[in-house]
């Protein structure tokens, strides 16, 4: 409503990707969004310009001029405009709008959720990494906070505060950083207190075919010495061996076990960003196919290799977890630059080792630490500004998917549901909040994001009841502190709600979350009613919201709400409403013919899944 409106086109049809269904309405173009308002009253849907990955004008048909928009959140919008000219106008405006050249043009700098400065400031203070290291038990007698990178001089892609072994003095650190790609020397990222074992991360050594660096060797020695439980340190090179070998020709490479007296070196074989990008692209092609047979589907999913890559990341995290929790050994993880695969493996490993990261707050902390602060290049990987397409890669998406696969295997272990993951994914690309802008901390400080934008974490925290997993058991983390996932192939499933999130006909028919949420509200209301009645004289007023709430029941009896709305009328779930019955019935006929799946309109229950409604505003 506050959008600056450029222009609008009437009588536009929006086609459903998987059925012959379409709706017509008006298309509005604003500075930040493309908004489609249906003619029949319903909530408008909109596409944020930042979400648009590509716009394509298809050739003119008898019904009009088609415009296909592919989004980074895997939404595909297919409009048909009546006039070629309108189509061209929208097309060229979008091309101009969707590739900002300066950070200041991003939505986060104009987004205003009606908060005052103090509230915004508090939002940014929600996650405190210093406190997080303290929680892990660092600094301690073996690990210290170093200020060598106070001015981002030693490594400009690292954060200011870094934790290193107490025996690693400044010359060792500086020497080691000069021997590491982009200066990313080994630092602590997770401390497993029980065994005093550390997870450290860095980039590849500049070893070439034979180069050595005594400081770097001392650094690894220091990491080893800081852990009395093990005589050696694992060095995990997350790349396939072939890639690491190829890097040697460019003066980079991997650690030579002969030079580092106390290491055990291991390749784990995760492919690089280009392979991942191509693999996901293939997956999207397979699932975007309208008339897919069961055989195309299964063979296609196997052929694109995406789930195999996801498994490789999980396998690496399991290796890391076992080394730390079972053997009590410290592990140094790296890949080439140490900001993609390294971030995946370190954060996923920590998630397996520490129940705290499986909570809503803890998961935010984990992303803040291993991804944001250690310089995963969100701007480049997510294509925030008009950049090099070769730098774009779904590394973070893949990490979220690994987490989702784990939540499927451990339904009680995670405080959050998949909507939390989807919401984070949405905003990594939306550029609506400042958290993921830029490539590293130094850049973020220069952009003054804390002063000029809002934090996503505060927003998610406020909404956290929407992201809660009804099966979560807080006791579970105590009985199962370390998760040991199975990596049998059927444990890696196609993440329908991620890749078909916006394809309504692909949604689950019934939402547990929605059900539970309504039940919860009903229960809260009855409790409030009771309190109102207990309070003499206040019986006719609304209950006081500030009174302490009773512990919110996770699964109240589904009494009133459900029976009230369901026991009176015969309701159809998974089919269209009353008015368009005939239309959808006709379509059913058609869709049976070619053996394609049923294409029915969504039931009301599902259409506003948590997070999703929010995302379009």
């Amino acid at each position, binding site marked *: 409503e506050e959008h600056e409106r450029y222009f609008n086109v009437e009588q536009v049809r929006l086609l459903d990707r998987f059925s012959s269904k379409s709706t017509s309405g008006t298309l509005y173009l604003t500075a930040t969004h493309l908004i489609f308002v249906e003619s029949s009253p319903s909530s408008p849907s909109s596409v944020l310009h930042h979400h648009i990955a590509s716009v394509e004008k298809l050739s003119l048909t008898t019904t009009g001029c088609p415009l296909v928009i592919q989004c980074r959140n895997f939404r595909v919008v297919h409009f048909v405009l009546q006039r070629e000219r309108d189509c061209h106008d929208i097309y060229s405006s979008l091309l101009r709008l969707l590739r900002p050249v300066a950070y200041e043009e991003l939505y986060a700098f104009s987004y205003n959720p009606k908060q005052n400065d103090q509230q915004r400031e508090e939002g940014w203070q929600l996650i405190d990494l210093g406190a997080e290291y303290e929680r892990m038990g660092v600094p301690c007698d073996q690990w210290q906070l170093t200020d060598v990178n106070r001015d981002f001089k030693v490594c400009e892609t690292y954060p200011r505060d870094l934790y290193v072994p107490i025996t690693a003095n400044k010359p060792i650190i500086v020497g080691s950083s000069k021997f590491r790609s982009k200066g990313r020397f080994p630092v602590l990222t997770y401390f497993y207190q029980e065994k005093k074992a550390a997870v450290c991360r860095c980039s590849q050594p500049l070893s070439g075919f034979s180069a050595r660096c005594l400081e770097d060797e001392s650094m690894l020695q220091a990491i080893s010495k800081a852990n009395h439980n093990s005589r050696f340190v694992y060095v995990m090179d997350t790349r396939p061996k072939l890639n690491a070998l190829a890097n040697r020709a460019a003066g980079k490479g991997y650690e030579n076990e002969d030079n580092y007296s106390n290491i055990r070196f291991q390749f784990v074989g995760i492919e690089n960003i280009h392979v991942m990008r191509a693999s996901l692209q293939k997956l999207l092609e397979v699932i975007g196919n309208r008339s897919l047979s069961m055989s195309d589907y299964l063979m296609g999913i196997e052929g694109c290799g995406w789930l195999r890559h996801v498994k490789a990341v999980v396998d690496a995290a399991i290796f890391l977890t076992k080394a730390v929790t079972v053997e009590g050994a410290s592990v140094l993880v790296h890949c080439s630059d140490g900001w993609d695969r390294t971030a995946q493996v370190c954060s996923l490993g920590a998630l397996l080792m520490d129940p705290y990261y499986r909570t809503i707050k803890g998961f935010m902390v984990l992303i803040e630490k291993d991804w944001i602060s250690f310089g995963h290049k969100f701007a480049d990987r997510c294509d925030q500004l008009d950049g090099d397409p070769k730098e774009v890669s779904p590394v973070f998406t893949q990490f979220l998917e690994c987490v989702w696969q784990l939540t499927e295997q451990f339904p009680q*272990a995670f405080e959050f549901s998949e909507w939390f993951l989807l919401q984070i994914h949405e905003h990594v690309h939306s550029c609506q909040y400042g958290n993921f802008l830029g490539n590293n901390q130094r850049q973020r400080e220069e952009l003054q994001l804390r002063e000029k934008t809002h934090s996503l974490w505060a927003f998610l925290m406020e909404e956290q009841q929407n992201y809660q997993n009804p099966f979560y058991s807080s006791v579970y983390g105590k009985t199962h502190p370390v998760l040991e996932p199975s990596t049998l192939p059927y444990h890696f499933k196609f993440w329908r709600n991620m890749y078909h999130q916006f394809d309504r006909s692909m949604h689950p028919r*019934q939402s547990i979350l929605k*059900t539970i949420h309504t039940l919860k509200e009903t229960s809260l209301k009855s409790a409030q*009613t009771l309190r109102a009645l207990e309070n003499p004289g206040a019986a006719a007023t609304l209950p006081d919201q500030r009174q302490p709430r009773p512990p919110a029941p996770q*699964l109240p009896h589904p009494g009133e709400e459900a029976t009230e709305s*369901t*026991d009176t009328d015969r309701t159809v779930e998974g089919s269209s409403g009353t008015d368009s019955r005939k239309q959808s019935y006709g379509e059913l006929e058609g869709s049976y013919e070619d053996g394609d799946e049923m294409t029915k309109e969504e039931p009301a229950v599902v259409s506003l899944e948590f997070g999703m409604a929010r995302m379009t505003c």
Partner: protein
Amino acid sequence: RSDRSAQTKPPSAMSSDSVSTSAELSPDDDVTMTSCWSHLLTAKEVMYICPFRGPLRGTVNVTNYRLFFRCMDQEPVFVLDLPLGVVSRVEKIGGASSRGDVSYGLVCKDMRNLRFAHKQSEDALKKSIFEVLMKYAFPVSNGLPIFAFEYGQVFPENGWKVYDAIAEYKRQGIPNESWRVTKANDHYELCDTYPSSLAVPVNIPDEDIRRVAAFRAKGRIPVLSWIHPESQATVTRCSQPMVGVNGKRSKEDEKYLQAIMDANAQSHKLFIFDARPSVNAAANKMKGGGYESEDAYQNAELVFLDIHNIHVMRESLRKLKEVVYPNIEEPHWLSNLESTHWLEHIKLIMAGALRIADKVESGKTSVVVHCSDGWDRTAQLTSLSMLMLDGFYRTTRGFQVLLEKEWLSFGHRFQLRIGHGDKNHTDADRSPVFVQFIDCVWQMTRQFPAAFEFNENFLVTMLDHLYSGLFGTFLCNSEQQRVKEELPKRSMSLWSFINSQLEDFSNPLYVNYSNHVLFPVVSLRHLELWVGYYVRWNPRMRPQEPVHQRYKELLARRAELQRRVEELQREVTNRSASSSSERAGSPTRSITPVQTFV
């Protein structure tokens, strides 16, 4: 002599191959017990060649109900508990090897194969195990009673009373002005594979019904399975018409279908769903069968649903077993799964049921469903569509009624399809039709997690006891046979067991959506392999955490909350009663107190 666990609860077939704690099973727990369990054999130093853990040495006990293997070397103690009814085949593997071992394998109906080995020197012993198994795993072939007839466990509830055909017709509003319940099959003289009470159109006299029966395969005339509470559109089922190569017609049959159409004033059409692929239906003409021609049946539209026959399904599941047991070939998992076509069959069945439900609900049109004999694919389709249409069947008891009605009373030939106690494992009549139906139900529960009162454990337990031979429920081929065998008198019903411990089988997320019609998506993106059933023997697959436990907790919590809400409501009612009497002006307020202030 037998295992003491049998005294306390019926052995759950599900726990086979599972690890139990040593506390639960001490080495000397073979205590004397009830007469039903007769101990047949104890053999020590037997090797169970576990595909997951390697060879395990232990003791085998065989009773007339089960084989019980225990290995004490493992911590916790490893136990394999196999109801003999699960065994499909016992085979000797190889001859005497140079090392003197002889091994034999048990091919099981529940997606696993087991191998045991003995030292050659214990020749007499080995022989006797083999013989005992050959005899007691196949009691029917050996003139012995199936164990269900000896199982004497008493349960608080009598599950045989769950289903009463007349009461179920009544629940649906039958008889009414268009439908009556006929006694024509009271002594199974009209059709020996149908139940005794049948619902037929009011204006068709019993004499005509007999003529219709003559025109339908095995006399399975079209009868009512379900009627829509509002539109009166019906789901009826039957077998194929005996059209033959010459295109024979039956006036009575045509009139009969017209009567079914006329019974529903909302539509002037009738849909006939032939579950088979059209090629198969046409091929049946050679054997005297066939399908309704639209010329003969006016206003009727014939639709083929392309579902394959029992042989194709048996082969598909056999391939699936090869793919999942014991180990999965990792890089080719999905292509191997694809090669079984199992999910494709599931998809076709669900799509067919959906079309039927949609015609009845949205089109307000009556449907006739048949395949060849109308006891396999037809049962799958009618029961699945009824599950979509009627919330009652989605309750635990309602589901039992659905099975008793559409599967058991209408003569799905369980005895032949499962081969209870029969050693003839190559019998072409065997087929996993019922398993496939339960798979479809599971697929639906995945899409509507709050719509079913029962949980996955209920479905798995049912399939376990489909084979276990512990209960009488799935024995025999028809109602007539069951009456003759006096099953309710001589055996226990599975529902007795289930309904006596409902908390193990309840879905905590269940919300009573009784008036909801569920239309699942049959997109392949929504169908997945039921790993929790087909792959459960693989220890790496076993749920990392017992979700059942969590279910129980949630259920207990919900019960507690429900109590609290009721308490609160009572209190609120009292208070509002007293406060309204204080404010004497508004005694007529009759709104639910809870909603007054929200």
